[in-house]
């Protein structure tokens, strides 16, 4: 074996470790900046806004989830609430069943926030949400419906650089090859947004959901590219408009058929381009001797 190999393996090992170290170094630094003290505000205000407000108000009425005003007197205990926040799907006592019967079993687990942040949020909710103001958005106009449609298909770009809805979702009334299906792979019901308006609790609920999406992939994608207020109003208006129409049965999916036909055409083209190619040694020799 050559002499360089041990040196290279050592170099490789050091480089790998350095990369992993650098990777987590960067991550820790960013986590610290996020946890700076937030002045005189209640500690739970900001985490509530980003993690809870998309589906809940405190005294502002139902959205996708229940209004959390008076929560302290409703829930069985603080410990119960902590357990529920960490694992809503796994909490199935009588009280949890009652809530799920009304709102469905859709609450995402919040364990990743960690005990400290969850305690801050619980304090904040039990105190009635001090400092929490919900901005009332203007009413929608017919122009919003058209803008919403164009935002859905991508003809109008989302101002902060987020991908258009059609990237992963479909909806009634799309022409051509239709909308995306990525959302179906994370949960079948999320692909087609024709009924998203009703599913997300009507105008107020859908607006809140779009302003700070909590859905699996969307949450990550839109975290630093949020939709603007005007975009939220327009998309909600469009989805509301679509929800009133009855969906036609889904048409035949031509995507794969176009693909196969196109592939055959391309293979024929390749054959034509190389029509004078050197085919087979023996065949050519035999042909030439005749």
């Amino acid at each position, binding site marked *: 074996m*050559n002499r*360089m*190999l041990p040196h*290279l393996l050592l170099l*490789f090992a050091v*480089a*790998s470790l350095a*990369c*992993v170290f*650098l*990777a*987590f170094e960067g*991550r*820790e630094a*960013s*986590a610290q900046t*996020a946890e700076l003290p937030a002045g005189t505000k209640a500690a739970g205000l900001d985490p509530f806004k980003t993690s809870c407000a998309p589906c809940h108000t405190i005294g502002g009425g139902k959205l996708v989830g229940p209004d959390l005003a008076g929560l302290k007197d409703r829930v069985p205990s603080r410990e119960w609430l902590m357990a529920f926040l*960490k*694992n809503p799907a796994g909490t199935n006592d009588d009280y949890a069943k009652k809530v799920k019967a009304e709102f469905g079993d859709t609450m995402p687990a919040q*364990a*990743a926030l*960690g*005990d400290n942040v969850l305690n801050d949020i619980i304090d904040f909710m039990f105190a009635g949400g001090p400092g929490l103001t919900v901005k009332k958005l203007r009413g929608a106009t017919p122009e919003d419906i058209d803008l919403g449609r164009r935002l859905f298909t*991508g*003809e109008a770009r989302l101002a902060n650089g*987020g*991908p*258009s809805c*059609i*990237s*992963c979702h479909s909806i009634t009334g799309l022409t*051509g*090859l239709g*909308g*995306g*299906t*990525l959302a*179906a*792979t*994370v949960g079948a019901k999320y692909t087609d947004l024709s009924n998203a308006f009703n599913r997300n609790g009507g105008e107020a609920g859908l607006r809140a959901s779009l302003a700070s999406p909590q859905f699996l*992939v969307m*949450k*990550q*994608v839109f975290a630093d590219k949020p939709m603007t207020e005007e975009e939220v109003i327009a998309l909600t208006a469009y989805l509301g408009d679509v929800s009133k129409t009855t969906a036609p049965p889904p048409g035949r999916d031509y*995507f*794969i058929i*176009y*693909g*196969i036909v*196109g*592939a055959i055409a*391309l*293979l024929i083209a*390749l054959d034509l381009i190389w029509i004078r*190619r*050197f*085919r*087979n*040694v023996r*065949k050519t020799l035999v042909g030439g001797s005749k």
Partner: protein
Amino acid sequence: MYSLLQTAAPAGPLPINDLLFVVVPYVVLAVFFSMTIWRYVKEKFSYSSYSSQFLENQHQFWGSVPWHYGILALVAGHLIGFLVPRGVLWWNSVPARLYIIEGAALIFGIITLIGLINLIVRRASNPRVRAVTSKMDVVVLVLLLLQVIGGLWVALTARWGSSWFAAVLAPYLWSLFTFQPDASAVAQLPWSIKLHILGAYAIFALFPFTRLVHVLVVPNHYLWRRFQVVMWNKRASKAE
């Protein structure tokens, strides 16, 4: 946000996700660069794909040509999505253009699969080609086959990849290259896409140890020249 260093592990598959999509890619990159350079320094003349065209050229055309043009288009597409995600989203802002790019990608995906299957059948069925097939060739072919089938599966089931690649995977890949890894978005993707990403890492890791190194040989004039007859001039074994 979560951290791998967090003492109380959050519920769900997050730590394994960090291992697969943060640690693995860095290890793969280190292997890829160190071993590729090492092989070039030590065995410069092994940078080849060892032409078998002289042994059999009847079926080679329908394997090699669709495979190579297909895979070049697909790799270029993935690379463009990684390098200029905003440009891709801009292009896709007109649905007709989105359908054109997705249709073209699917067509290239299908001819890539056809080419690869032809190459596998040729290598397995022709005794002369089989005689010059190494174990690593088999590994490469199986891995590429799984990767191409997986890619087609993703293209068909998780549309529209050109858009969501730019929105979800381009930021993830950039987070790796800027040493601020954030695999939280990848964690939420379906397993079909995760397997496709891991398949790509596997190919990059094996790259320096296989015939795939021929990709790096410049000038890469065989992209546009015709096939040429290559005669093998093997060194006689010691037994002879």
